[in-house]
C-alpha cells in the first residue's frame, strides 16, 4: 500500500480579463498570484491558458461559466465572482516526478479524491471571506491598491487553507444552530432588543453559544460567511488566549474569575487599560442590493459570543464601548447561565452512541442549518467518525441530486460493504453512513427510516 500524499496548492491567482494591456504588459491583468516564486512568464502563460479556456467554452453556450479543468497532473478550478474578474485555484495531483507505476497509482488516487464540487466550494468561500472584509473587487478603482489588499488577505488565508480535510460540509457551508426552549430563547431576544433599542448605532446583532448560533439579525448568506470566520478563525484564536491568561492580568487568583466578566475581542480588547479604541474591524454585508459597511464588534462572555453590526458612519468612541460593556456584561452573564442550564438538561450521554451506530449529516437549504455526527469537532481537523471514503461518496450523491428531482433517495453499498444513504426532501438533505456489514437493502432502508424518525422529528420526508 502506497502512502498517500496530501492535496496541495499549485497556484492561485486572480485576474481581470478586461484590463487593457499592450503586448508584453500582460502582467498587469494579474491582480494576485501565488506562489510568488513563479516566474512572470509562467504567470502570464497560466493566465493566458485560462483566458483561452474561457473563450473556448463560451463557444458552446454553457449554462454557467467554466468551472474546472482536469489534466493528468493537476486540477484547476475557476470562479467568476464579478463580471470580468476570475479567481483560479490549481491543485497538484502529484508532488513527485512520475516514473514508476507505484507513483502513478498515487496520482490516480489523488485525482479521485479531489471532487470538483468540494474544492469549488472552497474556492468560492475564499472569495466571500475576502469580500466580507474588503468589499467587492469592482469597488476598487485603483488596481494598485486592490493588488495590495489582495495580498494582505490571500497570503495568510491560503496558508491556512485546509485542503486535505475539505469535504461535503464545505459545499453546504452551513451554520450550526442551538435550539432553545421558548423561555430561554425569549430571554436572548429580550437581551438583544434591549441593546438594539438603547443603542441605535447597532443595526444588527448575532448571538452565539459556543459554536452554535442562537440568533442572527442579518441575512443568512452573510451570516454563513461570518459564521465560518468566527468559528474557523476568530474564536479559536481567542479561546487560546483566554486559556493562556492572554490579555488578562495574570495575578488574578483564578483565571476563570476573569471570565466572569465580558470583554470585547474586536475593538478595545482591554477596556481598563485602553487609552484608545484600537482598530475596529469593518465589514460589508451584501444582503441588500448594495454592499453596506458596518463596524464589526464582537463581545464575549463565558461561552457566549455577541456580534454587533454597527453602522459604518458612526463615530466610535471609547465611551461607547465602556457603556456597552457595563450594560451588556451582567445581563449576558446571567443569560449564559440560563442557556448552560438548559443545555445541561438536554445532553444525551455520549456513551449511547456506539461505534457502529449510523453517522449522519443533515443540511437545510432554507436556513442553512447543518448538523453532523460525522465530524467530531468544528476545526476541519479530519477528526471523523466514519471513513473519508464514505464522506466522499456523500459528496458524489450530492453532485447527482439535481438530476433526481426535489425528492429523492439514494442507497449505495461500497466495495467494503459499508452503506451510504442520501435523502432529499423539502429542501433538506440528509446523508447517512452505516457501517453494518452483511446488512441487506431492506434492513438499511428500515434503519434509515428509524433514524429519520428519531433525529429529524417533525421534518416531513416525502415518501419519494
Amino acid at each position, binding site marked *: 500500500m502506497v502512502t498517500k500524499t496530501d492535496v496541495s496548492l499549485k497556484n492561485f491567482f486572480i485576474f481581470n480579463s478586461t484590463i487593457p494591456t499592450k503586448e508584453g504588459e500582460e502582467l498587469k491583468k494579474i491582480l494576485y498570484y501565488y506562489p510568488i516564486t513563479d516566474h512572470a512568464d509562467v504567470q502570464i502563460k497560466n493566465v493566458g491558458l485560462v483566458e483561452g479556456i474561457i473563450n473556448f467554452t463560451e463557444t458552446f453556450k454553457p449554462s454557467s461559466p467554466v468551472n474546472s479543468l482536469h489534466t493528468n497532473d493537476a486540477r484547476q478550478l475557476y470562479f467568476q465572482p464579478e463580471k470580468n474578474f476570475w479567481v483560479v485555484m490549481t491543485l497538484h495531483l502529484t508532488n513527485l516526478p512520475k516514473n514508476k507505476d507505484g507513483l502513478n497509482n498515487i496520482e*490516480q488516487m489523488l485525482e479521485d479524491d479531489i471532487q470538483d464540487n468540494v474544492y469549488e466550494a472552497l474556492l468560492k468561500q475564499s472569495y466571500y471571506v475576502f469580500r466580507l472584509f474588503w468589499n467587492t473587487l469592482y469597488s476598487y478603482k485603483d488596481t494598485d491598491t486592490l493588488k495590495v489588499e489582495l495580498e494582505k488577505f490571500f497570503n495568510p488565508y491560503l496558508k491556512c487553507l485546509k485542503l486535505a480535510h475539505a469535504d461535503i460540509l464545505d459545499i453546504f457551508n452551513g451554520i450550526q444552530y442551538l435550539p432553545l426552549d421558548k423561555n430561554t430563547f425569549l430571554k436572548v431576544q429580550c437581551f438583544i432588543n434591549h441593546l438594539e433599542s438603547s443603542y441605535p448605532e447597532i443595526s444588527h446583532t448575532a448571538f452565539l453559544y459556543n459554536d452554535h448560533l442562537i440568533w442572527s439579525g442579518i441575512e443568512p448568506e452573510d451570516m454563513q460567511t461570518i459564521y465560518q470566520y468566527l468559528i474557523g478563525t476568530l474564536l479559536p484564536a481567542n479561546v487560546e488566549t483566554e486559556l493562556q491568561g492572554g490579555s488578562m492580568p495574570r495575578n488574578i487568583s483564578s483565571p476563570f474569575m476573569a471570565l466572569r466578566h465580558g470583554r470585547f475581542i474586536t475593538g478595545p480588547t482591554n477596556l481598563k487599560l485602553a487609552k484608545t479604541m484600537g482598530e475596529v474591524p469593518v465589514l460589508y454585508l451584501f444582503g441588500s442590493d448594495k454592499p453596506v459597511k458596518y463596524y464589526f464588534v464582537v463581545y464575549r462572555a463565558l461561552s457566549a459570543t455577541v456580534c454587533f453590526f454597527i453602522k459604518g458612519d458612526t463615530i466610535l468612541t471609547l465611551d461607547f464601548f465602556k457603556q456597552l460593556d457595563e450594560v451588556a456584561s451582567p445581563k449576558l452573564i446571567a443569560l449564559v447561565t440560563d442557556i448552560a442550564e438548559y443545555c445541561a438538561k438536554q445532553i444525551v450521554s455520549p456513551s449511547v452512541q456506539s461505534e457502529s451506530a449510523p453517522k449522519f449529516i443533515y443540511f437545510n437549504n432554507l436556513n442553512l442549518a447543518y448538523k453532523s455526527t460525522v465530524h467530531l469537532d468544528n476545526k476541519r481537523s479530519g477528526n471523523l467518525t466514519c471513513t473519508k471514503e464514505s464522506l466522499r461518496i456523500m459528496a458524489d450523491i450530492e453532485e447527482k441530486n439535481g438530476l433526481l428531482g426535489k425528492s*429523492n433517495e439514494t442507497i449505495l453499498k461500497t466495495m467494503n460493504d459499508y452503506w451510504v444513504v442520501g435523502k432529499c426532501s423539502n429542501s433538506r438533505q440528509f446523508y447517512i453512513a452505516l457501517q453494518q456489514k452483511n446488512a441487506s437493502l431492506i434492513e438499511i432502508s428500515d434503519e434509515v427510516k428509524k433514524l429519520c424518525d428519531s433525529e429529524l422529528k417533525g421534518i416531513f420526508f416525502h415518501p419519494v
Partner: protein
Amino acid sequence: MSDNVEIDPGATHESGLVTTNSFDNLERMSSSLEEIKSTNAISHSEDSNDNSNIEQLEESTNYVKDNVEEGEIEVSREWTSKSKHIFVLSQAGKPIYSRYGNEDKLAWLFGVMQTLVSFIQSSDDTIKSIHAGDTHFVFLIKKPLILVAVHKTQESEQQLITQLNYVFNQITSILTLTRLKKIYEQRQNYDLRRLLTGVERLIDHLLDFSEKDPSFLLGAVQCLPLANSVRDNISSAIISSCNKIKNLVFAILLADNKLITLVRMKKYCLHPGDLHLIFNLVQASESLKNSESWTPLCLPKFDASGFLYGHVSYLAEDCQACLLLLTVDRDVFFTLSEAKQRIVERLRRGNCLEAINEAVVSSDADWNGAGFPELRHYLYKCKSTAQFYQPPLGPPYSLSLRRLMDVYKRSHQRLHSSARPLKLAFERSANEAVLAWDTRGFELYATFEPLTSTAAIIASVGKLLDWVKKREDKLFCLNAPTF
C-alpha cells in the same frame, strides 16, 4: 439474495466473446492476424495491405459518399444546443470529423482545440476534460488523432471516453491502425478526410447507435432469443458448410441488432467492441441488403494492424438476417459465396429461417405476465459471456428511451466509477426506483414503479433471476462453437 441461484443465469464455461471490464478502454490490441497467417500458409504470399493505394480502398469499400449539401451551419444557436458534439482532428489540428456542421467552416474551432491540447502538452501534462455548468468537454488523445466530445448530457467522463474510443476504432477499422500511423509519420499535415469519404456516415450512425443501445454501455451483446436446438442447428449448418475453408476466422449471423450465432476459429475470440462495429456496419449500410459484398475490415481489438476480409450478405429475401464470413484471405469471395449458398439451403431445410423470422417479430412480450407487476424494465448482463438481455420497452419508456438510457447510464456510472466503485446502487426519485447491482457473475439494472417498497423490489429481483435462469438457453448463446 442470490442464494437460490447456483450458477448465474447465462453463464457458461466457454464463450465466443471476450469478456470485458466495464469501461474497457479498448487499449489492448492483439496481433492475431499474423498468427493465423503463419499457421495456415496463405495462398497469396503478397499481402501488403498497407501499400494498397487509396483508390483501391475507396473502390473496394462499398460506401457511397452522400452528396447531401451541408447547410451553412456555423456556430448558430441550433448548433450550440446540440446535446453531443464529437470532433476528430489530427495532431496538427486538421479537421477530420465533426458530428454537426461542416468541418471546413469549423476549422478555426479545430485549431483552438489543437492549441489547447498542445499548450498543455508543452508543460508535460495532458488535458482530460473541462467542465462548465451543463456543458462538458472530454479530450482523448490517441496518437495520431485527437478526439473531443462536447456534451450537455449526464454521462460520465469515462462513458464519453469509451464512446470516443469507439469512434477511433471505427476509423481504424477502415484504415487499420498501422496505416493510420504511417500516414501521419509521412505527412503530418495530411487531410485524412480524403481517405474517409463515406466513413462519416458510419461514425454518425455509430454515435446514434451507441447512445440508444445499452450494449455499448454494458460492453456486451444481446442475443436473439431462440430455442437452444434451433441455435445449435444454425451453428452446425454454418460449421458443416465452412469447415473445409481454410483461414475462415469468424462466421457471424445477426438479425435485428441481435446476435444469432458466432462460429469462430479455435483459439480466437471476438471482442464485443469489435462486434459492435460489425453491427454498426451492417445497420448503417443499406446497400448490403441488395447484394453480396466483399469488404476489407479491420477489427481493432482483434488485430489493429491488418484487415480481415468479409463476405457480407443477407440470408434470403424472406429472412433479414445478415451473415458475415470473415477470413484472412483477400480473394476467396467466390468460395465464401458458395459456402453461403450451402448454409442458406441447410437452414431452409431445417426450418431455421422461419424460426429466425418468428423470433424477430415476436417481441417476447410475455415477460411482464411472469409476475413482476412493479418491474418496468431491466438489463441483465452475464459477465462471463459478455451477453445481456433486456425485455422490450414498455410504458412509460416506450416514448422516452432517452430518459431510460439516462437512468441506466447514471446507475452504471455509480457502480463503475473509477474513483469509488460500488456493489449496489439504489435510487428513488419521483419518476422511478432503480436498482443497480454488480456481483461477480452478473450485473443487473432494474427500474420499478417509484413507490415500490425495497422489500418488494428485492423479492422481484430474486424472482427475476430465477426467471432468467429458467430461460437462459433461449436468451443467451450458451455455446461457443468452432469450425
